[in-house]
């Protein structure tokens, strides 16, 4: 097992190096180069020269890249052009919001997706199965931002049940030691703040969780259908075990492997892909941060943000691979 983990970690090295090269050269491919991109319309030949000296842009490319790598490995991602604050400081504020949202979305999709897929498989070929297939296909076909707008319209505008923007009401003031607002509200011992934070999470979580829900339901259905016809299931039935025991112990447990894998992969995607949902709900996470950075042409933020998000994505996927190997001994051997 250790050998497997080490091998996977070693495979990560070229990917991370490649990623850093892509991000490094991306900012140098911008029209007018990075100095122009930093200065925008205020650029004059003098200021450009000054910025190039200041950031070492007048040095050979390989020297620049080496310095960039050095800075990045010391968690120095530069300074935001818009706010003049270190990119890592902003990141530390934004990322917890996205984690919170992604976990809430995943919870929603797992709680509804697995039972839906299981029932569809058990009722294979009936109208229920067809309905769940069609439903999940529609779920995959709805652009996430359109679903977000619909949810906002029905539950926030029409019914007025849930808040439509932000993470917490402006009137509620609690300290934020962890930046995870759910956790902060619990630490502050303030139930009304907790309820408020949770209410702010519901709509974005449903919007963000809809696609994973559809995918999890489909995978669960396929996995259960696969396992259902295995010999050991037939044996279990033949020796007279009650259907519920067969479902739980023989079918569901063995179908769990692909389901767990897809949950992990989707979590990685959610952590990185909440751009559209966050924009609709003005949710102050990584997504809105990056979109603002595009509007402001804030390239240090974009460079650092994309690098960080990709890193998280790669690491979560690695974690999924390792967990997969842990629960499935067959992978470790090959």
């Amino acid at each position, binding site marked *: 097992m250790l050998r497997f983990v080490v091998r996977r970690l070693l495979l990560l090295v070229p990917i991370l190096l490649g990623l850093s090269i892509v991000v490094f050269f991306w900012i140098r491919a911008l029209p007018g180069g990075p100095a122009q991109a930093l200065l925008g319309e205020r650029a004059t030949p003098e200021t450009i020269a000054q910025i190039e000296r200041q950031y070492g842009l007048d040095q050979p490319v390989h020297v620049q890249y080496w310095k960039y790598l050095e800075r990045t490995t010391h968690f120095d991602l530069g300074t935001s052009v818009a706010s003049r604050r270190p990119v890592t400081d902003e990141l530390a504020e934004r990322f917890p919001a996205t984690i919170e949202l992604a976990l809430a979305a995943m919870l929603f999709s797992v709680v509804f997706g697995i039972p839906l897929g299981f029932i569809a498989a058990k009722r294979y070929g009936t109208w229920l199965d067809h309905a769940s297939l069609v439903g999940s296909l529609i779920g995959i*076909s709805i*652009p996430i931002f359109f679903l977000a707008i619909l949810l906002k319209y029905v539950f926030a505008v029409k019914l007025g049940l849930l808040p439509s923007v932000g993470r917490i009401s402006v009137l509620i003031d609690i300290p934020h030691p962890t930046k995870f607002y759910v956790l902060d509200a619990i630490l502050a011992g303030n139930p009304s703040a907790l309820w408020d934070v949770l209410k702010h999470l519901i709509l974005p979580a449903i919007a963000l969780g809809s696609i994973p829900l559809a995918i999890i339901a489909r995978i669960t259905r396929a996995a259960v259908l696969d396992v259902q016809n295995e010999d050991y299931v037939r044996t279990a039935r033949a020796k007279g075990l009650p259907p519920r025991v067969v479902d739980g112990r023989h079918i569901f447990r063995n179908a769990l492997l692909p389901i767990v894998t897809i949950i992990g992969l989707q979590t990685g995607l959610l952590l990185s892909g909440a*751009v559209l949902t966050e924009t609709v709900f003005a949710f102050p996470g990584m997504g809105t941060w990056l979109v603002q950075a*595009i509007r402001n042409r804030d390239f240090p933020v974009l460079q650092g943000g994309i690098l960080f998000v990709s890193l998280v994505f790669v690491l979560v996927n690695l974690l999924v691979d390792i967990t997969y190997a842990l629960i499935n001994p067959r992978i470790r051997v090959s």
Partner: protein
Amino acid sequence: MSVAEAEAREVQLEAPSGLWSEAWRRVRRNPAAIVGFVLVTVFVVVALFAPLVAPYGPLEQGLEGTLNFASPSWSHPFGLDPLGRDLFSRVVYGARFSLLIGVVSVAVGLSIGLVIGAVAGYLGGWIDSILMRLMDVMLSIPGLLLAIGIVAALGPGLTQIMVAVGATQIPIFARLLRGSILATREADYVLAARSVGVPRRTILVSHILPNSLSPVIVQGTLALATAIIDVAGLGFLGLGPQDPSTPEWGTMLTDTTRYLQTAPYLALIPGGAIVVSVLGFNLIGDALREALDPRFRGRA
């Protein structure tokens, strides 16, 4: 294998049919696929004949003599937008953009991806390793973010979107074709061709590629659906066509949250158009996957 399956095989042996004719037969019997074909046909026809379908021009303003939006009515079935333009006509013209951008970006991703996948899969060795690590790097950046990064570098615009969305699909096609080629490379008919001295390129083009293409076709259909969604997403984020009056579906949704209280149809109609066209491609893609998957062969 069940008795029914064994019998199905025999029937198949009596009347042998090609992969494609059998797939086509099965697609035609699948009601979901029919619905998908209908949706996609409507989408394509509307896009191609937009000037004939739309009662007004997409940019015609002040149709009611005012600059205000108006709810759906007989003369304007989908209502007017905030600038007094007929929403139905704009959605109809929007189909053109979605179809054009979708097809071009998938064509970009598919053609580059296929070349990379074919070269890597057929040549193998260090070329394969380098190309595939490159694809891994591209895949390590989440799709929408990669597209955003490319558009941010190139600036907003139609061509830039096509390039950006196409680029996100390159690694997917490259990996798919590579895997598929690795599987067919060792097939007996390829060995036979090689042993009688058929040149490498001919083996690749006329033996391996045609037999590796079916997963690519399925993925291509599904990629069209993803491309339409991604393009709309970029448009929604304000990275769409530089001229904001362009009737692109995603761009049309950008400001609608502001008017949700007074004019929800502004969001519902372009959004609905996206869902319908994407659903069409997804239904066809799903049906094709089932029809071309050898595990399902001989069942229908």
